[in-house]
């Protein structure tokens, strides 16, 4: 078990990013605690939500920050923290993190019409804010991966569960039928899985078309 004192310490932004990128468990946890503390202190200035949604917004924002570090959207070079286009990071990591949280909050309130619906009766709405493009979708390598990640976070719980069980936990359709008994047959489950993927693909392509090619 990691000594608690190690991850409650305050490290520099450079240390957080480099350590997290190298999958150092202490730094990953320290970054989490650092962002969590900052979020708890500041979120009420930015938005007003109940505890459940606050937790959701925090989780999604932290996942996004973490993925940005993994995918080298923000990275350390020669001891300097760099961001988009290799430019030196102009803000602190926590400010950047709260920027992501603000966008996640906007999505949650649907203020920017950024909801991605899955299923026959759900519309796929068109994203609008330019800041989305700035903050979340970099025109770098494999932007589609970023877009798909974001779409997955908006996916219905039902779709996310099926796809996670099949592709992440590598369970067979028969095993999934046992765990998710709402489906009457293997074929029904298979069709549902396919629909979830198809809708995910459509949403991702729509965003790609609207944001990246504009």
């Amino acid at each position, binding site marked *: 078990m990691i000594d608690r004192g190690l991850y409650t310490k305050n490290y520099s932004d450079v240390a957080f990013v480099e350590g997290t990128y190298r999958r150092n468990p202490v730094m990953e946890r320290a970054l989490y605690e650092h962002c969590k503390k900052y979020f708890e202190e500041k979120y009420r200035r930015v938005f007003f939500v109940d505890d459940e949604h606050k937790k959701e917004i925090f989780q999604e924002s932290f996942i996004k920050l973490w993925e940005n570090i993994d995918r080298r959207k923000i990275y350390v070079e020669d001891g300097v923290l760099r961001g988009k286009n290799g430019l030196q990071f102009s803000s602190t990591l926590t400010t950047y993190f709260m920027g992501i949280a603000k966008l996640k909050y906007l999505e949650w309130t649907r203020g920017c019409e950024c909801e991605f619906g899955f299923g026959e009766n759900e519309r796929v709405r068109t994203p609008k804010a330019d800041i989305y493009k700035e903050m979340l979708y970099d025109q770098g390598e494999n932007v589609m991966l970023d877009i*798909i990640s974001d779409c997955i976070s908006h996916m219905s719980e039902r779709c996310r569960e099926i796809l*996670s069980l099949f*592709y992440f*936990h590598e369970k067979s359709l028969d095993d999934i039928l046992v765990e998710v008994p709402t489906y009457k047959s293997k074929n029904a489950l298979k*069709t549902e899985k396919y629909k979830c993927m198809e809708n995910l693909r459509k949403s991702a392509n729509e965003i790609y078309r609207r944001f990246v090619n504009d």
Partner: protein
Amino acid sequence: MKENYQDSIDKYVLGQMIDDEKSAFEQMMLKDPDLKMQMAFTKDMITALKSREEKLAKMDFWEEEEETHQTLCAGDRFNLTEVKYKSLRQSSAFNKLRKESRISLIPFKPLILWISGIAAVFVAGFFLIDSFNDQELYKNQKGMPSVISENDHILYIKKNYLIMDISSLKGGGDHVEIVWMIESGELDEALNRIEREKMKIAFEQKALEAISDKERRAYEQKSIQLKSDELDWLKVYALIAKGQREEVMQLLDSLRNSDGVYKERADSLYLIITKN
């Protein structure tokens, strides 16, 4: 995207194809751009899903560890009937992560820490002389009592947890039940119950007029005031958990301007919320 392609793609990405089948499929992909695109999309989706699930598993683990740590720290103040520890052995995402990265599933230090904590609880419970008559209520308590983390009157509120020392509540079993309602997230029921208790207090207040003994009347008045302030404080927490900021601020303002026992706490909390 073609449904019939997806079966073959799934077999390929999950490593379920034999070598010959795999080579033939790879040849097919070179000739069919739609198949190639569908494969690329599936791979990206799996990468994104895997990344997300791994991170969520770690975050859940950290949260559980932190909650258990705080609970153990406060263990001697409460009658702990069980340690709230969601078994990570049942978390398949975490187990998958553990197998791949050899994260130890034993999140705590030595077992002796657990034994010490539980022993401290039993000792504290044995010596705790409770003035309540409703000891049975504690024994049947489900889940974890809240953790108090108090530093210069600053109380940290967690989702569905009420930070109260239930052994010192003036309102007795009725107020303890309100605490449990708030802990278990039954916020509307808790608020309704608070209103009912407030009505009872109003009746008690009226009944004071019939008491001729001055000293006794003063004592009863003080007792009623303490219970009333306590109900207001419980209401503050229920409203905070509900996210009703305006009502919270009004109630805190009223508490901090009174001369009750919660004056200082209300003042601190009021300032913290306004500062944020």
